[in-house]
């Protein structure tokens, strides 16, 4: 770096590359959403799509675009961003690269809550061979949410006793997660065919079942959390260097960590309860972006959101195209793509400059 004013220009150029990465991600997300609009069981030409978007009418094409595809694209975008952002905050707050909604047992708890609602409270019914619907989605959602928050509360409580030591938190997550998985298995074992079908079908993560009202809820929650997380970006940067340093820089670490965990879990609970289980997005989105923009949350938070959107949309594209006209549940695709990618990240990390923190 030069000693004169040019030194700062050099730094700004260095930061500019991170901004460029974010712009490129934006372009990628835009391209993916265009591709997503064209994908579905009915093939449409560019003219048909454009005219349907421009003139919302009662014709079938217009309805396909406005009532099916645009909500699905928006859901992929918002849910992907939300899950990835939640993973980003969880990883930093717990100083644990493996933290994410799925590894902390939050998703398992949400699944248990939903199964409880469907099987015990009878909030579900099967309609036909391929479709089963949840007759009372809000009970299912509420239960999924309640159980995920319970998990977060348990994990925060358990880890507080060990002063948030990273391994203990993940172990607590694994333990709590397996208890809920066992609970789900027992519920399903004693369920009747209809309820079982609905419960199992529910747990396949699926974007198309999200209604416009539900999409609104997901969007509001995600946007509100995004604003809070972005406001906290400097605090997260301080926290990334250790609790003691953060406190010496004037950060109230306990409050920051606890509130961040609650909000990250809220996003997860809302997403999981409306869409079912969608794994790995919260793990790989932020992990990939750490390699690209580093651990500066000024850029890591927006980059993780965009990467999450991109991963979710790409997975949804793959889910629609792979066995067309059959659509695979998107949750299966994210896990299928995410698992190997995450293994690769782990192996890379081992040989790389920075190792796991514990």
């Amino acid at each position, binding site marked *: 770096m030069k000693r004169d004013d040019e030194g700062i220009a050099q730094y700004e150029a260095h930061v500019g590359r991170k901004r460029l990465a974010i712009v490129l991600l934006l372009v990628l997300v835009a391209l993916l959403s265009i591709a997503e609009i064209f994908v579905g069981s009915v093939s449409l030409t560019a003219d048909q799509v454009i005219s349907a978007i421009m003139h919302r009418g009662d014709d079938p094409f217009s309805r396909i675009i406005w009532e099916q595809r645009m909500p699905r694209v928006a859901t992929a975008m918002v849910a992907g961003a939300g899950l990835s952002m939640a993973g980003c905050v969880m990883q930093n707050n717990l100083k644990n690269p493996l933290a994410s909604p799925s590894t902390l047992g939050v998703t398992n708890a949400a699944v248990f809550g939903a199964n409880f609602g469907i099987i015990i409270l009878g909030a579900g019914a099967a309609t036909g061979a391929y479709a089963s619907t949840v007759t009372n989605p809000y009970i299912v959602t509420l239960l999924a949410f309640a159980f995920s928050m319970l998990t977060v509360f348990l994990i925060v409580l358990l880890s507080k006793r060990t002063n948030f030591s990273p391994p203990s938190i993940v172990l607590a997550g694994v333990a709590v997660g397996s208890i809920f998985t066992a609970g789900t298995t027992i519920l399903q074992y004693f369920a009747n065919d209809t309820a079982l079908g609905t419960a199992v079908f529910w747990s396949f993560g699926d974007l198309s079942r999200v209604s416009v009202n539900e999409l609104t809820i997901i969007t509001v929650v995600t946007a509100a959390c995004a604003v809070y997380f972005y406001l906290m970006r400097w605090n997260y940067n301080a926290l990334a260097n250790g609790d*003691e340093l953060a406190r*010496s820089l004037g950060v109230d670490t306990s409050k920051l960590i606890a509130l961040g965990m609650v909000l990250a879990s809220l996003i997860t609970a809302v997403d999981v309860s409306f869409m079912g289980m969608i794994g790995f997005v919260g793990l790989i989105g932020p992990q990939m972006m750490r390699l690209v923009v580093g651990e500066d949350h000024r850029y890591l938070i927006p980059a993780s959101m965009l990467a999450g959107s991109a991963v979710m949309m790409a997975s949804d594209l793959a889910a629609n195209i792979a066995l067309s006209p059959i659509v695979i549940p998107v949750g299966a695709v994210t896990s299928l793509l995410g698992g190997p990618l995450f293994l690769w990240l782990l192996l890379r990390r081992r040989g790389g400059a920075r190792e796991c923190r514990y």
Partner: protein
Amino acid sequence: MSILTVNGLSFSYPSLDVIKDVSFEVMPGEVVSILGMNGAGKSTLLKCINRILKMSSGSVAVSGCDISSLSSRELAQKMSFVIQGSRFSSTSVFDAILLGRKPYIEWDATKKDFEIVKDSICRLGLEDYALRNVTEMSGGESQKVALARTIVQQTDVMLLDEPTSALDLKNQLEVMNIVREEVRRRNVAAVVTMHDLNLALRFSDKFLMVKDRRIYSMGGIETITAGAIKDVYGVDAEIAEVGGHKVVVPL
């Protein structure tokens, strides 16, 4: 007037007293080293002074302000802390130092913050590393980054927990020179825990010896005697003078 006043500070875990009734004063322009055996409570003392740990009783004042009356942010503008074996997240050196401006940042870092960071980088000779990843630095370089971060925090009191423990001879001298220079330049104070007695003798104005959780002695270089070394460390030693510097030679 003293820049740091510690009055009757005690700290204990439920079943264990760590520090008992420690009082001392530090004047502007002074480097004070805290000496004592491992486990004597030196690091704990620093953490209590900086409110990272909550003291059981006693009070601490910085530039006349009782720290219990300050918000976390206000405290961070008055007192900084260099943690033993600082750990860095994966960012550039510039960004790692910029974090020291955190207590002043409202919405985002400004040009003024960048200027202050750049000045400290130049002063510490880190220009060549400024945009490199801080996690790839050597021990000496990363300790300088930690110091630069403390310097841009522009506090009245800098607390340093064993800033030289993992460094080679050259870096030890450089780091302590930086600390002393900054203290003199801005007429502030530094409180440093150290294991290397000779380094402490060379760079400190005052010495605080800690034994059995209490202060054994506090004063100028005259308080470092063979008897004091024997009492605090249980080691026979001779105090000699080499090239104008007082040194401790264990026997």
